[in-house]
């Protein structure tokens, strides 16, 4: 019974990792940009929510609604004025600029908030649990997982049902041709990063509610997100969810065997998938 419980906890943890990964996947899918500061942006989102909670006395769930437009604007400006200038054939500039951003952001947070761990204030809801037959499920993990599914459904709807989504897909396929049709790729990219940071904010909420965070944990979140994206196959959002679940289950099972193996087990699962299916479980037809 304890094993079923472990595996279900892992699946729900996978929802959090899928939230980390969706923003990364979105940005890569549209502009082939790997944002190495992604994990640090998640941590920054958590601090933003914390500041709003402290200053305005809001519940974290309400503070998110204030944080979302701010983070969208940040993403939009970041892409428009910084990252767009690095895009091109050469992969070095975007990698090195986002790496520089990651280090700068990490240390700015360290300077502003110190290295102490923080946590978003919890209430009755966040500690509640429901009994599902023989096992008990926390409300927070369930909510995280549901949010991940909602985000992915929402992104898929956005991609395939809206005009903006059509512009996203067109720019992703061929930015030059898309610009002949009246699309401004620079703005499309900016909007995409804005949306990615909205997802980052949602991820940050659950990160902050579920566990302690400090300025140094960003890179590890980036790595989990990256692993989920690669396992799922580049460009497949449902694949990313499955990738997150695989990492989550590997971690909880690893931790159940030996607490020191938690993180290692997740990485090993990733390497095994990379060995067996180098292009991920659901690769896009051509990329």
């Amino acid at each position, binding site marked *: 019974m304890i094993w079923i419980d472990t595996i279900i906890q892992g699946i729900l943890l996978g929802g959090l990792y899928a939230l980390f990964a969706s923003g990364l996947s979105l940005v*890569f899918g549209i502009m*082939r*940009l*790997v944002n*190495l500061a992604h994990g640090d942006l998640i941590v920054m989102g958590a601090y933003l929510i914390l500041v709003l909670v402290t200053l305005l006395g809001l519940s974290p769930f309400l503070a998110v609604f204030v944080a979302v437009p701010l983070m969208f604007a940040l993403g939009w400006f970041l892409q428009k004025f*910084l990252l767009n*200038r*690095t895009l091109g054939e050469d*992969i*070095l*500039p*975007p*990698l*090195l*600029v986002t*790496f*520089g*951003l*990651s*280090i*700068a*952001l*990490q*240390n*700015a947070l*360290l*300077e502003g908030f110190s290295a102490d761990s923080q946590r978003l204030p919890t209430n009755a809801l966040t500690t509640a649990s429901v009994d599902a037959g023989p096992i008990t499920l926390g409300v927070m993990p369930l909510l995280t997982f549901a949010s991940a599914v909602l985000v992915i459904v929402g992104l898929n709807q956005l991609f395939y049902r809206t005009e903006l989504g059509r512009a996203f897909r067109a720019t992703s396929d061929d930015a030059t041709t898309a610009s002949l049709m009246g699309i401004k790729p620079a703005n499309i990219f900016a909007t995409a990063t804005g949306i990615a940071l909205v997802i980052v904010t949602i991820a940050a909420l659950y990160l902050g509610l579920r566990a302690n965070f400090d300025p140094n944990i960003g*890179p590890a979140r*980036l*790595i989990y997100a*990256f*692993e989920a994206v*690669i396992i799922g196959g580049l460009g497949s959002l449902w694949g990313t969810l499955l990738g997150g679940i695989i990492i989550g289950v590997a971690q909880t099972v690893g931790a159940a065997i030996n607490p*020191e193996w938690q*993180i*290692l087990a997740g*990485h*090993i699962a*990733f*390497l095994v998938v*990379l*060995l067996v299916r*180098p292009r991920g479980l659901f690769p896009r037809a051509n990329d």
Partner: protein
Amino acid sequence: MAYKVTTQTPASRIAAIVGAIAIVVLIALPFFAGRGTIQDMFFILTMLVLAQFWNLLAGYGGLVSIGQQAFVGMGAYALFGAVILWGLDPVPSILLAGVAALIIAVPTAFFAFRLSGAYFAIGTWVIAEVVRLLVAQWKTLGGGTGTSLPRSATRDMWFVEMIEEALGVRSAAARDILAYWLALILAIATIGGIYWLLRTRRGLALAAVRDNTEAAKSVGVDAGRMKWIVFLTSAFGTGLAGGLIYMQKARISPDAAFSVTDWTAYVIFIVVIGGIGTIEGPIIGVLVFFALQSLLADFGSWYLMTLGVLAIVIMLVAPRGLWGLLSERTGLHLFPIRRRLTGGQLTTSEE
């Protein structure tokens, strides 16, 4: 008519002479410099070696690795393992450090080469994390908390007694001088070796792969093999540097030896600031880096923030770094690799 293909320029001849003088001064440095200077120079030289190897990977091989700490850490732990478990002398163990990094590089390349471009970067990082977590399980070498080199091993290290007597210094200072000389040898061998590599047929192939992989393949360059050669060379050199750095520190822990900030972020900043894709770049970069560190080290996280922002600005404004700026303006190359035709009279056919 007599003509020849050469890579030499007047500037490079002068640079060679200045370089030779600099090397003589650096060799003689322990005879007149204090212990603090020697330690600073050790730091500069080892960072230079790491930067040259990262530059070989990213600047020439197009392989942006964020996992260099895997080779530093592996090299360092191999040295500690050889000394503590096998009772070897630390000095020859440095070679084992390189070999250990080389061994770990084979599976790393096998996995990471499955990922292309930007994903390769994070892939190397993941593998470095895996190595760190595995090494932290190695209880005989202190597990997660780390361990120190036994006092007997550091005291009886090769050459230390000789240096003590020759220079009239204490044992601890003699160890620093030994480490410094070894770092100097490693740095000269690294720069010389990379310069030699770039001037050979393989170097030409490497430049061709960097500039246009498809075109290089079409004229018969085995691009995949070039990647392997560059990756393994760089891992071996980084492992040697890792072993040497921790021989001098004499104390190790997984978090320090596999630190992404110390062994990869700093190194990337050095190369980017100095100028990626040149041999001169990392040399300039490490000097700027050291100057910034001396100025700003007291400000803790402000220092790293400055470095991060500086790297962003340089990448946007001058992607070829400080050396690139200078080289573009003046056409100066201290380590020229471009082959030029000289001596022939181009007008003879018209006579």
